[in-house]
């Protein structure tokens, strides 16, 4: 009881002193920051640690500075005066805001700031209360800067073990703790391009951390190595984030680049402490940064406002950019060889009907393409929800799909050859619809063109899809439709511009000849698809395809014969055709699943079969490795292999340089290859990687190869840049 009384009296006394202190402070010039000291617990327990907070209540529009203040300013410092044996830990800084004062960029805090400090009490504490005191120095700035100093103190009773309870401030302290960056559960590295003054920070972490980030910002812990004012460009590829930075004034390249990475997701920022290890020089590290302009949150010279530091429209512009890239990629697809047979049909259609109505046809075609890409977007979204390993061109990994397409091309060929002419009915679902004059025909030509384009992953498209797969469904859909718009653009343009149309030849007798000639690219495409099927399914699949061709051919002939027969007779052909179609597809699918395991070895034409374990082993041994990720249905891959990779010059060079050639075949599903593709931000093949050996990072080669390019890119004696720091003369 007496103890309680003495404590109360002491408390009253202290309160009076504090009030007096407060009163005298009133007389001093008004400060821009109110500073006080809070504790998360109502008492100090000997031998335990208590968290206290130096609270800065900063006048609106003013700010104090982070640990690294950026281009100007000075961080808050706390000089403690603690009782004997008490020890204060470092300030646990919350994630800072970007404070742009063009052309400078500072790092600081606005509003209410809690600087957390853990204070460890000794095992023996004299007396029954302790007073924690500190002198807090800080610079507070708006347009002008004022250094201020505040003395804070806090007296707490001493409680026995198990004593004390969370104080009124416990919740505020917990909130503040949540704002303190945590160590990144992942890895970080950086590379330097000294000639350009570029730094690239590469962060690998679980998708749950990186996925959906719309903005990223690196706050260096120290001054000098990283420019504060340069914009930071973010790119996100699944489990990997790259951030392009500029070097700071010292051009120093420390072994560990320490700092805090702030990720913005859904308007909320979270900080991760990283220490990026220095990787090899040069900008060729990993996939190129692209698509995502991570918002000019750094402000740079253009940063206009100071009151919205971290939240910006980076997400919007990055999506816009992705759609733009998708559009360009889609337009480029028209140049790809696998679209050619469909383009031939389309050109034929224009030649046939040059008297007008092209605008409608152009838009019908656009509609067909868009429906297809929208369907694909929906499919991607649905499949992404499942955990199936898949990627762009994944439809081609299904034997049934390949066979269906082969039959479709075969039947279209038959039609062009004049074996059958479809008047209507079920069989129209494919080629006849595409051939049909008028808007419906154009609509289905669009559908067909979009389906046939899948294996041609142009660099732009692969990147756009890779990006889209990491995005919310709405963005994914927008990117896919962007692809479709670009893809359809040339035809729409042709239909809109009479000038361009005039280039098309006049209708005439040559058209029938042309039509018949055009059948052969379609047969060739069908043949090629059967070859793809042969790799997927082996001889059983080929047999299924051959039987299907015979049956469908028979059905087509029968359809022609019975065109004017009664309905019941007339129905025999389509029913027979559909039955043959279905049976052969199921045969192909079965053959495919049986053959799945053996497939990858079979397709490794030359070079070793890629497995992740083999690659990791070789890289760990420091051996130079060339990885070719390919698929039978990827024409770009095949052309590259014929032109460059299978040439004697490349074979000789690989042998001389001791380069081990690994071939990963993605003709059928292979999750290890899908993983590697995703790691490099790709959703499809081809992907060519060169690991120079000696622990150096892999180089990504372009998607179009030449002998010279391969020889240049696989020089094993990679140039290591000279002195890592040039502090000037």
């Amino acid at each position, binding site marked *: 009881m007496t103890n309680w009384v003495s404590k109360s009296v002491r408390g009253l006394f202290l309160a009076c002193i504090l009030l007096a202190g407060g009163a005298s402070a009133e007389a001093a010039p008004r400060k821009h920051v109110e500073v006080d000291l809070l504790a998360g617990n109502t008492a100090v327990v000997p031998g335990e640690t208590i968290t206290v907070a130096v609270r800065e209540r900063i006048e609106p529009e003013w700010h104090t500075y982070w640990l690294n203040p950026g*281009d*100007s*300013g*000075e961080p808050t410092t706390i000089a403690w005066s603690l009782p004997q044996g008490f020890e204060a830990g470092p300030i646990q800084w919350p994630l800072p805001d970007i404070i742009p*004062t*063009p*052309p*400078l960029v*500072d790092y600081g805090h606005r509003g209410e700031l809690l600087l957390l400090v853990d204070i460890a009490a000794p095992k023996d504490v004299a007396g029954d209360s302790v007073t924690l005191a500190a002198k807090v*120095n800080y*610079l507070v*700035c708006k*347009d*002008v*800067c*004022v*250094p201020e100093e505040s003395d804070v103190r806090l007296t707490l009773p001493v409680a026995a073990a198990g004593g004390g309870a969370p104080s009124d401030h416990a919740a505020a302290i917990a909130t503040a703790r949540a704002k303190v960056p945590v160590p990144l559960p992942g890895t970080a590295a950086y590379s330097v391009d000294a000639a*350009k*003054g570029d730094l690239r920070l590469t962060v690998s972490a679980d998708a749950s951390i990186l996925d959906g980030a719309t903005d990223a910002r690196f706050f260096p812990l120290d*001054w*000098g190595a990283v*420019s504060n*004012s*340069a*914009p930071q*460009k973010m790119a996100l590829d699944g489990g990997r984030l790259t951030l392009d930075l*500029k070097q700071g*004034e*010292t*051009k120093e390249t420390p072994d560990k680049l320490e700092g805090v990475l702030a990720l913005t997701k859904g308007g909320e920022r979270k900080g991760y402490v990283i220490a990026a290890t220095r990787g090899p020089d040069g900008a060729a590290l990993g996939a190129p940064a692209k698509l995502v*302009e991570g918002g*000019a949150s750094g402000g*740079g*010279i*253009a940063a*206009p406002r100071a009151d919205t530091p971290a939240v910006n429209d980076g997400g*919007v*512009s*990055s999506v*816009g*950019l992705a*759609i*733009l890239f998708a*559009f360009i990629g889609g337009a480029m697809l028209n140049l790809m060889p696998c679209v050619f047979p469909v383009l031939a049909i389309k050109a034929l259609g224009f030649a046939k009907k040059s008297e007008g109505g092209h605008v409608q046809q152009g838009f019908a075609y656009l509609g067909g393409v868009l429906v297809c890409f929208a369907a694909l977007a929906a499919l991607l979204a649905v499949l992404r929800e499942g955990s199936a390993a898949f990627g762009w061109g994944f439809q081609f990994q299904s034997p049934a799909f390949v066979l269906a397409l082969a039959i479709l091309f075969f039947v279209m060929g038959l039609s062009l050859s004049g074996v059958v002419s479809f008047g209507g009915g079920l069989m129209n679902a494919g080629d006849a619809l595409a051939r049909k004059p008028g808007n419906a025909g154009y609509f289905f030509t669009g559908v067909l063109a979009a389906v046939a384009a899948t294996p041609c992953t142009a660099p732009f498209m692969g990147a756009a899809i890779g990006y889209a797969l990491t995005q919310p469904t709405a963005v994914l859909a927008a990117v896919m439709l962007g692809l479709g718009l670009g893809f359809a653009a040339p035809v729409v343009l042709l239909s809109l511009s009479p000038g361009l149309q005039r280039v098309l030849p006049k209708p005439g007798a040559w058209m029938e000849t042309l039509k018949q000639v055009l059948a052969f690219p379609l047969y060739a495409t069908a043949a090629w698809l059967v070859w793809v099927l042969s790799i997927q399914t082996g001889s059983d699949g080929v047999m299924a395809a051959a039987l299907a061709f015979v049956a469908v051919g028979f059905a087509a002939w029968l359809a022609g014969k019975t065109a004017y027969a009664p309905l019941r007779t007339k129905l025999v052909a389509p029913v027979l055709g559909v039955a043959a179609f279905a049976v052969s597809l199921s045969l192909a699918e079965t053959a495919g699943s049986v053959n799945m395991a053996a497939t990858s070895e079979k397709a490794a034409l030359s070079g070793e079969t890629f497995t992740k374990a083999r690659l990791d082993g070789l890289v760990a041994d420091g051996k130079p490795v060339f990885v070719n990720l390919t698929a039978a249905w990827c024409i770009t891959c095949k052309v590259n292999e014929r032109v460059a990779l299978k040439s004697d010059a490349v074979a000789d060079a690989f042998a001389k340089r001791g380069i081990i050639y690994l071939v990963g075949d993605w003709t059928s599903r292979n999750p290890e290859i899908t993983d590697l593709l995703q790691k490099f931000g790709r959703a499809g093949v081809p992907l060519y990687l060169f690991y120079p050996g000696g622990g150096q990072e892999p180089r990504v080669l372009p998607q179009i190869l030449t002998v010279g390019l391969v020889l240049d890119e696989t020089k094993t004696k990679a140039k290591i840049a000279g002195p890592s720091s*040039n*502090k*000037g*003369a």
Partner: protein
Amino acid sequence: MSFLKPLAVLFASAAMTVAATAAPEVGKPAPDFSATDSNGKTVKLSDYRGKTVVLEWTNDGCPYVQKHYSTKNMQALQKDAAAKGIVWLSVISSASGEQGAVSGAEANTLSEKRGAAPAAVLLDPQGKVGRAYDARTTPHMFIVNGDGTLVYMGGIDDKPTAMTSDVKAAKNYVRAALDELAAGKPVATPVTRPYGCSIKYKHSS
């Protein structure tokens, strides 16, 4: 027109890249400039070829500048420099109406009152000289040698505080660099952290 925005972003970032690489570098020619001093005279950096030139960004309202003037630290450096034939140029890049912005006459009065001894005080309200040097803080110090090469940029010393008590114990980088130049030696620490208030540049340029 939604695609225009990403394009604009692309161009903007390209432009900023150019700006970022245009920053002065130690060991390279210092950016030349032409500016008007407090007496209305035009001063060019190239006028001083053959002499060592010190550039000091200043703002008399800034506590970090006050730290070095109230302790006579800056004046002592200026006087030593003048005695050795070194040209000391104080530069004020505060925009008109901002803290530190002064007229020529006010600048001269200020120098007199503080006992400052710069060879000239350059008035740079448009921030042209400041931006050419990527000057950020007051103070921010640059040294150009007789060949016109930038040999030092950074802080005045290694104690980045506004506390006058820190001046004495600090290592003064500018004094050290000037001594090394006088002895014909390379500057041992040519790039350091500038510290202080932000320069109150003219907005929206």
